[in-house]
C-alpha cells in the first residue's frame, strides 16, 4: 500500500493509523482527501457525500463534482437532494397543518384556484376540507363556497329526562358541547336545598360516565345556575350561591374538564352586600368574562346594576369587579357574548321607563365602543334578552311581556360589531298566544331561533324556526316538543354532526325536571 504520496499526513507519525487510513475509505481519510488533492483514482477523491456531486481524479488532482440538482416539473412542489436516500425528494410548497390530507392554498390564492397549490379552505381544522360532510354549523365544511349547503334543522322527536327524580323541582342553567359530549348544568332541589348539578350527555342525551349526574355545589346552601361555556379544552361554569353567611347570593366560578370534573376549588367572584345574581359567562379566546346583576350599591331600593369580571385562562380574577351600568335605575339579567371583534352584552333596563332591552358593544377589557343602545321598541315591556354573534353581526332576541300587550311575541334585531343598527326589531313568532324565552343558534348565513310557545292546547312547547341573517323567516314556526306538561326555558348548544342540543324545563311526568332534546341537521341531497 503506497503511502508516500501523502507525506504531509503521514508525518504525524501515527503510523499504524495511517497505514489503515491513507488510501482507505475511513473517516480520517475523508477529511484529508478531496478536491485539489493529488490522486491516482476517482475513488481516492470521493468525500462520501452524494448530494454535492461525484468527485473525480483529473490529471492527478481531485476535482469537485456537480451538486445534484432536483428539478420538479410540478409547480406545487419543490425538490431537494436527500443524502440519506441518495435521491431527489419532492415536497409540496403548501402545508397541511391540520393533517386532513388537504393543503392550504398559497398566500393570495383562493382555495382550489388555478395555481393555488391547495384547496383546503381551513387548514387549521381537520373537519373542514373538500369532500367533508357538510353539517349545520355555520361553516363551509366541504370548501365548496356555500355555508351549510342549504341545510335545515329538524326535530329529533326524542326527548330525554336529564335530571334524576331524586332532585325536584329542577330547571336548566346551561348547555355546552366539548366536541365529544354535552355538559348540561341545572339547578334542582334536594332535601329542600337547591344545588347546581352537571351531567355529561351523549348525542342522544343519555348520560355518559358513572355517575352521569354530579352535584357541583357541595355546601348545604341554595345555589342556582349554572351558565356554561366550552373554551376548546375545558368548561367554564358560573352560578349564584349563598354558601357564605350574610344572606346574600354571591357569584361563583369554576372550570370543569370534558368529563365534568372540577379542575379546581370553587372561586368566589363577588364579595358584596345584598344579592349578586343571574351570572352569564363566555370565553374571549384568552380570558373568561362574566356578567351579572348586583345589588351592592342599591341595597333596599329594589334596583340592580350590571357588573363584569375578567378571569384569566386559569380562572384567576383580573382586576376587581367592574361596575358597568352607573345609573341608579334598574339593570338586570345580562347576557354577555364574545365575538371576533370584542364583546356584546344585552340586559333589561328601566332607564327608558318600562322594562326594555339594551345592548352594548365593547372591547375585551369592557370599554364601550358606543353609548348603550335601546334595542326593543319604545313602550314595549321587553324581557328575556339573549345574544349571539352571527357571522358579521350581533343578533339580539327577547320577548314582549306586557300584560296589556296584544303581542306577547319573540322579537329580534341585529347590530354590527360596533353596535350600529343593521336590522330593526322584527317579530320572530306570530300567533295569538304567548311566545317566550328565546335562545339562538348562529349558522352564519342563517339563524335558528328556539323558544317556548303555548299556542297548542295552551301548554308550553319548545318551538323553533330558521331566519336569515337579516331575520327574514326561512321556515315555519315548528314545534320541537309535543308533550302536554309544559316545556319552557330552552337553552341550546351546538352538538355533534350539526345537531343543536336543547336543554329545557318540563313537567310532562308531573314533577318539574330538566330534559334534553335536539334538532338534527338535514342536508338536501346534492346532485
Amino acid at each position, binding site marked *: 500500500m503506497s503511502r508516500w504520496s501523502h507525506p504531509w499526513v503521514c508525518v504525524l507519525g501515527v503510523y499504524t493509523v495511517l497505514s489503515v487510513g491513507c488510501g482507505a475509505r475511513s473517516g480520517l481519510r475523508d477529511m484529508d482527501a478531496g478536491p485539489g488533492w493529488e490522486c491516482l483514482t476517482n475513488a481516492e477523491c470521493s468525500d462520501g457525500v452524494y448530494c454535492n456531486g461525484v468527485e473525480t481524479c483529473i490529471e492527478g488532482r481531485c476535482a469537485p463534482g456537480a451538486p445534484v440538482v432536483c428539478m420538479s416539473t410540478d409547480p406545487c412542489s419543490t425538490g431537494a437532494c436527500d443524502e440519506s436516500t441518495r435521491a431527489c425528494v419532492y415536497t409540496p410548497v403548501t402545508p397541511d397543518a391540520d393533517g386532513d390530507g388537504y393543503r392550504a392554498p398559497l398566500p393570495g390564492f383562493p382555495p382550489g384556484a388555478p395555481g393555488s397549490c391547495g384547496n383546503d379552505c381551513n387548514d387549521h381544522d381537520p373537519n373542514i376540507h373538500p369532500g367533508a360532510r357538510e353539517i349545520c354549523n355555520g361553516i363551509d365544511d366541504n370548501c365548496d363556497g356555500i355555508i351549510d349547503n342549504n341545510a335545515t334543522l329538524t326535530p329529533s322527536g326524542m326527548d330525554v329526562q336529564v335530571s334524576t327524580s331524586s332532585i325536584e323541582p329542577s330547571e336548566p342553567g346551561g348547555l355546552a358541547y366539548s366536541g365529544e359530549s354535552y355538559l348540561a348544568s341545572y339547578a334542582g332541589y334536594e332535601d329542600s336545598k337547591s344545588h347546581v348539578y352537571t351531567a355529561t350527555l351523549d348525542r342522544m342525551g343519555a348520560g355518559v360516565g358513572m355517575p352521569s349526574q354530579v352535584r357541583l355545589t357541595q355546601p348545604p346552601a341554595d345555589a342556582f345556575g349554572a351558565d356554561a361555556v366550552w373554551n376548546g379544552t375545558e368548561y367554564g361554569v358560573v352560578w349564584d350561591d349563598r354558601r357564605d353567611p350574610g344572606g346574600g347570593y354571591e357569584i361563583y366560578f369554576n372550570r370543569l374538564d370534558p368529563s365534568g370534573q372540577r379542575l379546581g376549588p370553587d372561586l368566589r367572584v363577588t*364579595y358584596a352586600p345584598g344579592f349578586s345574581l343571574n351570572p352569564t359567562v363566555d370565553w374571549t379566546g384568552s380570558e373568561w368574562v362574566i356578567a351579572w346583576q348586583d345589588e351592592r350599591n342599591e341595597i333596599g331600593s329594589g334596583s340592580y346594576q350590571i357588573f363584569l369580571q375578567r378571569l384569566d385562562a386559569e380562572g384567576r380574577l383580573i382586576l376587581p369587579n367592574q361596575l358597568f351600568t352607573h345609573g341608579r335605575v334598574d339593570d338586570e339579567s345580562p347576557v354577555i357574548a364574545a365575538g371576533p371583534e370584542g364583546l356584546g352584552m344585552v340586559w333589561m333596563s328601566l332607564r327608558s321607563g318600562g322594562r326594555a332591552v339594551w345592548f352594548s358593544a365593547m372591547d375585551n377589557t369592557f370599554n364601550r365602543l358606543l353609548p348603550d343602545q335601546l334595542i326593543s321598541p319604545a313602550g314595549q315591556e321587553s324581557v328575556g334578552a339573549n345574544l349571539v354573534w352571527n357571522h358579521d353581526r350581533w343578533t339580539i332576541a327577547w320577548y314582549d311581556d306586557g300584560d296589556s300587550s296584544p303581542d306577547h311575541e319573540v322579537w329580534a334585531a341585529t347590530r354590527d360589531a360596533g353596535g350600529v343598527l343593521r336590522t330593526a326589531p322584527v317579530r320572530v313568532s306570530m300567533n295569538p298566544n304567548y311566545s317566550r324565552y328565546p335562545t339562538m343558534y348562529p349558522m352564519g348565513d342563517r339563524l335558528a331561533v328556539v323558544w317556548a310557545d303555548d299556542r297548542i292546547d295552551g301548554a308550553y312547547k319548545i318551538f323553533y324556526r330558521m331566519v336569515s341573517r337579516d331575520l327574514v323567516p326561512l321556515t315555519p314556526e315548528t314545534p320541537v316538543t309535543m308533550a302536554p306538561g309544559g316545556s319552557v326555558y330552552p337553552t341550546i348548544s351546538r352538538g355533534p354532526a350539526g345537531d343543536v342540543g336543547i336543554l329545557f324545563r318540563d313537567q310532562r311526568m308531573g314533577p318539574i325536571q330538566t330534559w334534553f332534546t335536539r334538532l338534527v341537521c338535514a342536508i338536501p341531497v346534492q346532485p
Partner: protein
Amino acid sequence: MGARDAGDTGVDIPYFDTNVYDVYRGNPCPGTPPPPVRMYTCDPLNTSSCPAGQSCYPSIDYPTMVCGVETYRTDCFPAGTSGQDTFCMFGTQCRVGFSCFVTGAMNRCLRLCRLDGRPPQCDNGTVCEISDIPDFGACQ
C-alpha cells in the same frame, strides 16, 4: 330563571376590591345538613287563611353563620294592593295571593302558585317558577 324572595337585603360586607380571592375546596359543612326550619302560620296559597284584610306572605330568614339553616316563614300581614308584575320591595306591598320576588326583570309582585301542578296555577301565559322557598312557586 328562578324567582327569589325579595324580603332580604343581606348584611353589609365590605366588598372585594383587591386581587385577593377566596376559593372553596369542598363542603365546609360535613355530615347530613339539617333541613330548613319551616315556621308556617298560614297558607299563602289559600286566600282565606288569614283574617279579613290580611294576606299570608312567605319569607326567608337566611342563616347568618356558615352551615346555618334557613327558616322559611309564612305570616299574616295587612294585605297590600299591588297586583301582578307591579314593582315592589316587600311582599306586604302585594295583594292577597301575591308576594314580592326578585325576578331578573324587576322586583315584582307575582301570583303564588304550586309547583306540583295542583291549583292555584298560573294564567295569561305565565309559568309557575321555582323560588328559593321550594314549597311555593311564583307565576312569571
